[in-house]
């Protein structure tokens, strides 16, 4: 065992530096000045409502990526590659570095070319209206080929407009951006947030904007590994996803000017798929040889009241007769009837040891009591989901759930009305009063602690209470799982009856063994001497009132329980 003085000393060696103090003080002052204590207009950061990716989904997720074309999409709202985006496509950076070596003329032509060459040697992404998109391998090569052979001459001319083509790379520290307008290019390199910035203008030897725009507009990238859903929430199995990717990869695409069927392909004839790209959701509707893409991210942001009309739709023509039929066939064969999100969720809930409830106020995030936990679990286990609910706004309860031994690996879900959100998707449930029931459990209205008292008075139940948590021998520390199991088995095998003791018969001071057990809302100490058991129970009821009870019992047909327990523990 480690000497705890080491920990104490190590901890005390940590101090805020003077610079850090200044930063914090300045930050506090600035923020407090912004909004002097007013919370009435407090809006939670958008990030809080971003679709989240949990550990278990990280295993199956990578990215489906759509590149939306068209001039209308080229208003640049974000300039950085978010960690989400990075997470969605973790390999995007490395895979192209090698390929780029062949695409770029290895001989530096002049300093200016080298600058651009360095840029092209990196992975890059296109900056689009709804966040960043990633280029496919093919598209990257095409872009590099366009740049290859072009000469750059530094110029003072600055002619960029808002709709200039813009693409960038970011490696976590530095960001480089190239913007193209006609035969003018702006190259901007920034190191960190406060580091040096290089900004240069070049005139190109030719007009490459049209060529680049053609590459941008006529691209539909469907990357691997993301799980696909049908709009009703059912999942396509792995083999199906693979076949669909292969199908989409078989054809070339051309941006279509018109939105066929009046801009909505989601009629009964079309085949719709939902997919996620980093923080964004998209719905693909395939009808004949036409694909319509719609950014549906807002649907899944429960508190976002922005109008859906803001969503961008775009239409892509596929160079085939009928993509829809082939897709429908795959979907028909590979759709899982059960909703995998829900199945996984219920499985995890069943195996988790704790919930904690999180509210918006930062100071009242707390673990649920066992009673609340049981109540919530009971409700959740009864639920039948109704797929694909579009839930827009409303109050909600958010819960973390996590395994007892690894509470860092938390997952979360939200409950609101008769809706439950799992893995960023809302489901309606067959329990109309779901939220009311949860509220009753959390508020204590549904908390009856009489069972604790009852269990205390009933010896068998009392022991089940003692033994349901991990317990340990007070004098010696934790018992391992095997030792606990042996003691549990032993105690459960005994028969008990009430024991009365004379005042002089003070078993608490007698030599024996002390076991301790406890949950989040109760604590039980058990003193065992010979065949006698003295236990005390402290618990807090739903109103926060503490209670204390004591009782003594004797184990029948037993010579010396304490010695047997100590023997199990190996300390007799």
């Amino acid at each position, binding site marked *: 065992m*480690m000497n705890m003085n080491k920990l104490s000393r*190590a901890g005390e060696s940590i101090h805020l530096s003077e610079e*850090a*103090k200044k930063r914090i003080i300045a930050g506090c*002052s600035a923020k407090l000045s912004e909004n002097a204590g007013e919370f009435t207009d407090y809006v939670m950061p958008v990030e809080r409502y971003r679709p989240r990716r949990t*550990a278990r989904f990280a295993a199956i997720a990578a990215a489906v990526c759509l590149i939306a074309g068209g001039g209308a999409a080229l208003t640049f709202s974000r300039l950085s590659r978010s960690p989400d985006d990075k997470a969605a496509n973790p390999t995007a950076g490395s895979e192209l570095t090698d390929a780029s070596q062949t695409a770029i003329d290895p001989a530096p032509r002049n300093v200016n070319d080298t600058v651009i060459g360095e840029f092209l040697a990196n992975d890059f992404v296109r900056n689009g209206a709804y966040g960043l998109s990633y280029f496919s391998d093919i598209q990257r090569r095409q872009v590099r080929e366009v740049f290859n052979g072009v000469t750059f001459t530094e110029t003072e001319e600055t002619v960029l407009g808002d709709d200039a083509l813009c693409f960038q790379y970011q490696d976590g520290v530095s960001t480089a951006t190239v913007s193209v307008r006609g035969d003018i290019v702006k190259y901007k390199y920034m190191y960190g947030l406060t580091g040096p910035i290089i900004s240069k203008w070049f005139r190109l030897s030719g007009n490459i904007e049209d060529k680049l725009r053609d590459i941008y507009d006529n691209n539909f990238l469907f990357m691997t590994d993301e799980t696909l859903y049908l709009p009703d929430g059912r999942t396509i199995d792995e083999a199906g996803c693979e076949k669909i990717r292969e199908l989409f990869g078989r054809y070339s695409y051309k941006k279509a000017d018109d939105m066929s069927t009046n801009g909505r392909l989601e009629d009964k004839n079309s085949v719709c798929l939902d997919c996620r790209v980093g923080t964004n959701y998209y719905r693909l509707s395939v009808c004949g040889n036409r694909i319509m893409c719609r950014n549906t991210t807002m649907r899944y942001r429960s508190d976002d009241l922005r109008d859906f009309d803001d969503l961008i739709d775009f239409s892509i023509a596929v160079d085939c007769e009928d993509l829809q039929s082939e897709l429908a066939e795959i979907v028909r064969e590979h759709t899982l009837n059960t909703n995998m999100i829900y199945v996984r969720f219920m499985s995890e809930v069943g195996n988790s040891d704790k919930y904690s409830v999180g509210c918006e106020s930062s*100071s009242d995030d707390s673990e649920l009591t066992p009673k609340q936990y049981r109540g919530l679990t009971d409700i959740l286990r009864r639920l039948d989901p109704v797929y694909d609910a579009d839930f827009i706004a409303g109050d909600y309860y958010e819960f973390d759930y996590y395994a007892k031994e690894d509470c860092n690996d938390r997952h979360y879900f939200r409950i609101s009305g008769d809706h439950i959100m799992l893995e960023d998707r809302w489901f309606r449930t067959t329990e109309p009063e779901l939220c009311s029931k949860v509220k009753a459990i959390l508020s204590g209205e549904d908390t009856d602690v009489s069972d604790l008292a009852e269990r205390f008075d009933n010896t068998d139940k009392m022991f089940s209470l003692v033994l349901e948590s991990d317990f340990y021998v007070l004098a010696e520390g934790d018992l391992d799982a095997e030792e606990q199991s042996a003691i549990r088995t032993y105690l459960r095998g005994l028969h008990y009856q009430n024991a009365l003791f004379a005042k002089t018969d003070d078993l608490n001071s007698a030599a024996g063994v002390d076991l*301790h057990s406890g949950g989040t809302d109760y604590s039980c100490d058990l003193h065992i001497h010979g065949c006698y058991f003295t236990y005390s129970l402290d618990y807090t009821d739903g109103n926060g009132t503490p209670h204390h009870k004591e009782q003594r019992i004797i184990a029948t047909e037993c010579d010396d329980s304490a010695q047997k327990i100590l023997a199990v523990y190996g300390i007799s």
Partner: protein
Amino acid sequence: MQDNSAVEKIIEKYGDMLYRLCLIMLCVPADAEDAVQETVIAYFRKAPDFTDPEHEKAWLITVARNKCRSMQRFRRNHPVLSDEVLETVVQSEEDSRVIEALSELPEKFRLVLTLHYIEGFKVNEIAKMTGRTSSAVKMQLAKGRELLGKKYKEEYL
């Protein structure tokens, strides 16, 4: 609106303690500084009337812990790579190892061990701060000690 001196006073009084706690919870110095800052802001915006200095301290710790949890949650969903390491904060190599071993424990153990052994809070005080029972805290201390010792021994001895 608060003037700088009020903020300075709080940072001077509780800054190191909060920073230690946040750093051990988050392991990234910059994130820990952010958490301290958010905690202090919450203090000026939302602090109740404190009955005594201990109450104030306990409130700050509770808020800091929750800020850390929120940041951990955010970080899980928005992973970033950080070059910052604990060695840059903890001067002695041995101290750094101890803190590193501590930071690898599950959150609940990290929290109670920090509060008990570094900040010197008693079991019942930690129980109040964290909303757990004393017995649960005792259990977590016992288990945490064992895990810390094991981790330290496995990785550094």
